[in-house]
């Protein structure tokens, strides 16, 4: 068994410290501190693993306050996979320190079971409906749990919802479907934003796609993000198993983080001889919603939307999957839409999943930079394609009091289709 140092030695030595990654790193941009950049984080990992100058446990912040947005990789000439190194380091830290009970609960119990997850979300709804959550916030109780307490305010009021059952009921049969797709719903939509699920199904239907909603579990990214690669792999195997029984052309999701990680199942299970090939077959079917629609040929029979629209590229869409053109193609084909490109459109918004819960201030600073760019476009509509981004951007817009609506791309498309004459 190679040690971690041996495993990563060659990769770590790829970095020649040219520093070209610095401007691509949102955290470096807002802090100006060297070790928040890819170059810095790699140098510290090198110091710990190869030079043995300090322990990995002395690098908690460098390992955990990386957004893993992969913005650095756009600029890195030798292609140092900093994000992967960070993920690997988190796994090692987890192994060394053990897993906190909350993470165990989340990754081993709740996320792999959409029913349990739904129930947990109802508990939070209860706290909302009874006013307990607001009370905890107002009395400063939430501040007791540090950054998580501050970030809590970003999570919107939990809506009434019937979870995956409700989503399944949204499925309609359509006349003469040309395609058949499984809708990977994810963890957020059924519990916090059922309207996104409705929009997704409607948009797919409008594009001659018959939709099924299998009982997929969480894609596994949150677990991997905290170093729990074991749980991530468990969830991956579950999803691959479920998909293997389906007769579909594609597995579609409007969540960029999900589509990205689902495609990464190939890497995740590469060393598992039993699952490697299945993972590859699975990954080949994964499509982000924009990717899917452009690939099959977008239905352009839409009504007019008079909006000035700009797009924020989710990191998992642009940096990870290199999908940048398709969302723009879609937005530009909506009649009445004036599309305006934002500066640094592909710079992370600071959401990075649950990043804000551990690094609230940094998350806010990165968001502030993004909001400046949004404001300068003069747009009235900010579109993105990932629930975490949408949550973060909505917070930002409200904090800065910008007259901007924040929408998922499926929601905007849905609106356009509904506006068409003679619509159902």
């Amino acid at each position, binding site marked *: 068994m190679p040690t971690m140092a041996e495993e990563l030695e060659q990769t770590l030595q790829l970095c020649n410290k040219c520093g*070209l990654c610095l401007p691509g790193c949102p955290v470096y941009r807002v802090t100006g501190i060297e070790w928040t950049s890819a170059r810095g984080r790699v140098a510290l990992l090198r110091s710990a693993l190869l030079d043995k100058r300090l322990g990995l446990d002395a690098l908690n912040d460098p390992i955990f306050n990386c957004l893993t947005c992969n913005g650095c990789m756009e600029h890195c000439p030798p292609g140092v996979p900093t994000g992967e190194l960070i993920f690997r380091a988190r796994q090692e830290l987890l192994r060394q320190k053990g897993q906190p009970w909350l993470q165990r609960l989340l990754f081993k119990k709740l996320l792999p079971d959409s029913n349990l997850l739904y129930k947990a979300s109802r508990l939070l709804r209860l706290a909302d409906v009874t006013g307990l959550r607001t009370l905890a916030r107002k009395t400063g109780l939430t501040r007791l749990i540090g950054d998580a307490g501050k970030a809590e305010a970003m999570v919107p009021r939990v809506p009434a919802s019937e979870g995956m059952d409700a989503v399944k009921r949204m499925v309609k049969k359509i006349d003469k479907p040309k395609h058949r797709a499984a809708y990977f719903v994810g963890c957020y939509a059924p519990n916090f934003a059922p309207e996104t699920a409705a929009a997704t199904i409607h948009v797919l239907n409008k594009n001659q796609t018959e939709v099924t909603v299998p009982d997929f579990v969480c894609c596994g990214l949150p677990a991997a993000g905290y170093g729990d690669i074991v749980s991530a792999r468990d969830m991956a195997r579950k999803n691959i198993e479920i998909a293997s029984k389906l007769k579909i052309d594609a597995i579609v999701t409007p969540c960029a983080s999900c589509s990205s990680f689902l495609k990464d199942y190939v890497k995740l299970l590469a060393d598992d001889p039993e699952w490697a090939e299945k993972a590859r077959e699975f990954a080949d079917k994964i499509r982000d919603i924009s990717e899917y629609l452009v690939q099959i040929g977008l239905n352009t029979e839409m009504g007019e939307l008079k909006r000035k629209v700009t797009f924020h590229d989710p990191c998992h869409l642009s940096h990870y999957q290199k999908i940048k053109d398709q969302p723009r193609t879609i937005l530009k084909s909506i009649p009445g839409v004036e599309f305006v490109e934002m500066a640094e459109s592909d710079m992370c918004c600071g959401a990075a999943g649950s990043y804000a819960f551990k690094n609230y201030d940094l998350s806010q600073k990165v968001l502030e930079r993004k909001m400046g760019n949004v404001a300068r476009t003069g747009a009235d509509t900010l579109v993105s394609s990932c629930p975490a981004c949408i949550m973060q951007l909505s917070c930002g817009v409200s904090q800065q009091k910008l007259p901007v609506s924040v929408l998922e791309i499926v929601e905007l498309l849905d609106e356009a289709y509904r506006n068409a004459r003679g619509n159902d």
Partner: protein
Amino acid sequence: MIAQSIIKELARIVGKKNTLADLKDLIAYSYDATMRQELPDVIVLPQSTAEVSAILKLAHREKIAVVPRGAGTNLSGGTIPVKGGIILEISRMNRILEINTADRRAVVEPGVINLDLQNALAPLGYFYPPDPASQKTSTMGGNIGENAGGPLCLRYGVTSKYVFGMEVVLADGEVINIGDYVEDFPGYDLRGLFIGSEGMLGIATKLTLHIIPKPEASQTMLAIFDRLEDCSQAVSDIIGAGIVPEAMELLDQNICRVIEQSVKAGYPTDAAGILLIEVAGLADTLEKQVQEISQFCQKNKVRELRIAQTNAERDAIWAGRRGAFGSVARICPPYIVCDGTVPRDKLPEALHKVGELSKQYKVLIVNVAHAGDGNLHPLILFDVNKPEEQEAAKKAGADILDACIAMGGTISGEHGIGLEKMDAMRHMFDPADMAAMRRVKHVFDPDDIFNPGKMFPPEAEAGLPKEKGAAR
């Protein structure tokens, strides 16, 4: 090692969050884009001139070294704290304070990134000519410290032409203004001394830059040659005829091969040398220039001359050149890059010499050069796990610099001396020259607070003439 009490005092000046002293912080600031590493004692990130001044007052009182630092992308060891001390990181002082196109001036804080400045000027139809390869990351303060160059210097000149004034904090914390917003300021050219002084005379906290309108149009070409001699002779002929392209970059076969592995620029991998030539100016004058250049290329047996017809083609041609160093890093992260410069017509001879040394020391050397200025960039590759290869690479580099001196050139065209070329200073300057430089350093910084241990080989310090000037 500096006392905790000093670190606390620094924290009172810039704030605790902006004072970094954990081991991980020290390691992160121990390096730049070269291979050396030395730990500082503490890092501070000030946000105002007043804070910088207070830091220097403290450092001066306690006689602690201060190393000014921008983004740490320099290629000469300029920001490596060889005597420990305080790293004064200016990345937070990054505001563009004023752009006045009617005066042709921009006033910026030193932490502004070169490319960010360009992007702010572009919509106004202006630009700041010095465009070092690091411009995406490097700061204006860093650019001034090294008197940075770049391909466009061929036509427009170097950094020293584009910096008119500065606010500077001296070693004892005194804040002065050197140069001016307006031209022809009388008195000694302290700003000229400061530019390229590699952080050894003081730290600039505000910069008044010269900006100019963008050219009306430009035309980019790629000239492909079967022999390196023909390629470099073409450079000589073109410049010799009085044509001043905006850029003239030479790339040899080895580096083209390396580039094409990473950046699909469309460079040929079987040509001994290629020239990236860009002419710029009034649209109606370009056609003729292109024709003349074409003729000179023909005269030198050019295999093929590609003229970019669209913006995309132009961008692709440049992407290869700008990705050169990076592409080398992909196949061989550690390399020594030389920066020797020779009079332009010695370029063929210099490249030939580089080839000879490559064979002699058995190291692979790939070449890119700002051919129009005679500024070579041989990249000498070696395996970081083979110390004897690194030694051979170092020796080859030293010999290349000696050759440049012998041809009437200089040991550094744009990267600076820092640590990397300290030894070579002896070959280029005689004791009287170095003593004079040391005197200037002594005038600005008698206690050697700023970036000690750089530029001058150790024995130069002993050579400081005894008859010093009157104390302040």
